[in-house]
């Protein structure tokens, strides 16, 4: 039995020579960051939630069973929005028709309106363009808008900033922060960048070698981060990230993320 208002997931299985064994139980609200080095299974978890990958396990979202021993809801029947690492726009459609692809295929009440999304993501001037004439940052904003317009009850974002350079990142990040504030859609956000995690996340799950440490809330005013901040500035963010990831606990990573934010670091290049 599951309470509504929560996301309960457990996935276990082998993909090639990679072994995943992940379980978490988080509120179906706010932004949950899946944090870890590349190859730790973050993307696989996201794909399992979307139904694009099928491992054994179970998944309950807000009281609804998407997967258990008997059930496997097909990906197109799951109300998720998925933002891939590369924007993956449909090359044969204009920006407008990319945005409307999912919107047209949803039925009933549509809480997310087209005007709202185009305003939120600054897409008005792009609407009639072909997608090949967009910059990297513009493409990713269209991909985010497209996912939002499919009226998701859960938004899955797989390192949406990783394929962008520093400047484009700085362009898209504010939109993501507004997203967080303006829409009440729960988000699973995959990243390996502590600053992104701290800026956007409400809680954090650290993944390492296909296993997850329990979720920890990100507390932006955590007093113990002074020490971390000093070490962050002395050792440097990359080395400290590696060190804390090796420790593997969500607490350690959450602390690092907050420290990185407080130290005023910019999101690291992908």
């Amino acid at each position: 039995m599951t309470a509504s208002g929560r996301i309960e997931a457990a996935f276990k299985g082998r993909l090639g020579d990679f072994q995943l064994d992940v379980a978490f139980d988080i509120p179906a609200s706010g932004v949950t960051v899946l944090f870890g080095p590349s190859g730790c299974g973050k993307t696989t978890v996201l794909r399992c939630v979307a139904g694009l990958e099928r491992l054994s396990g179970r998944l309950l979202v807000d009281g609804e069973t998407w997967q258990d021993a008997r059930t496997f809801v097909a990906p197109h029947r799951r109300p998720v929005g998925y933002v891939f690492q590369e924007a993956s726009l449909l090359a044969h459609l204009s920006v407008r028709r990319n945005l409307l692809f999912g919107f047209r295929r949803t039925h009933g009440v549509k809480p997310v309106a087209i005007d709202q999304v185009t305003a939120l993501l600054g897409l008005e001037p792009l609407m009639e363009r072909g997608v090949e004439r967009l910059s990297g940052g513009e493409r990713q904003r269209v991909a985010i808008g497209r996912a939002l317009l499919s009226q998701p009850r859960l938004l899955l974002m797989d390192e949406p900033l990783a394929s962008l350079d520093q400047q484009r990142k700085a362009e898209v990040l504010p939109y993501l922060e507004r997203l967080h504030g303006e829409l009440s859609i729960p988000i699973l956000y995959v990243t390996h960048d502590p600053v992104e995690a701290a800026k956007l996340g409400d809680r954090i799950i650290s993944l390492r070698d296909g296993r997850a440490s329990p979720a920890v809330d990100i507390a932006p005013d955590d007093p113990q981060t002074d020490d971390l901040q000093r070490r962050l500035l002395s050792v440097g963010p990359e080395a400290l990230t590696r060190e804390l990831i090796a420790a593997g606990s969500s607490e350690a990573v959450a602390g690092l993320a907050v420290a990185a934010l407080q130290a005023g670091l910019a999101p690291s290049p992908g």
Partner: protein
Amino acid sequence: MGEVLWLTIKLAGVTTLVLLALATPLAWWLARSKAWWKEVIGALVALPIVLPPTVLGFYLLIALGPHSPLMAPFQAFGVRTLAFTFEGLVIGSVIYSLPFAVQPIRNAFQAIGDRPLEVAATLRASPMDAFLTVALPLARPGFLVAAILTFAHTIGEFGVVLMLGGGIPGKTEVLSIEIYKLVESLEWDKAHQLSALLLAFAFTVMLSLLLIERRTGRLRP
């Protein structure tokens, strides 16, 4: 001569339409399936490339002839044989040109990759919806190439149509056979005209194929 030309175009046109309908699901399966034995089917499809047309024509002549078990179900409808008929030629041409339709479409489907279909699925498109609204439009250049190649290849066939059709004037006599007959009866002028016509046609086909390739190469993101 007008009759021969018309028959040739009709054969190539009908063959192309039938083949596009037939090759699309086949190419989709070959592009997407993970079955290990799919290349066995792939090899069967590609067989007409290396098989002498006379061999293919010979087997088809037997398979579509009056004593073939394949024809038994049709005898109830008064159809004894499809050898030496237009319908028989269409069947022969479809098999003969199968690889020229399947391969470009299969390549186009493979070039699309998994991602656009995954995108479509996460945007609530059912597999059939995604096939029609994402895979087909993205593979359009492949279909264009398949249609041109099939049409041109059917125009150019000789061995199969001769074996299976016998070159009956007004019924199964197409351009390539007409040229052969003209040369045999020493009517060089007419043979020259028809040959020049086919030469110009073949050049146009190759040019348009290369232009399509260049354009789609540029469009690819």
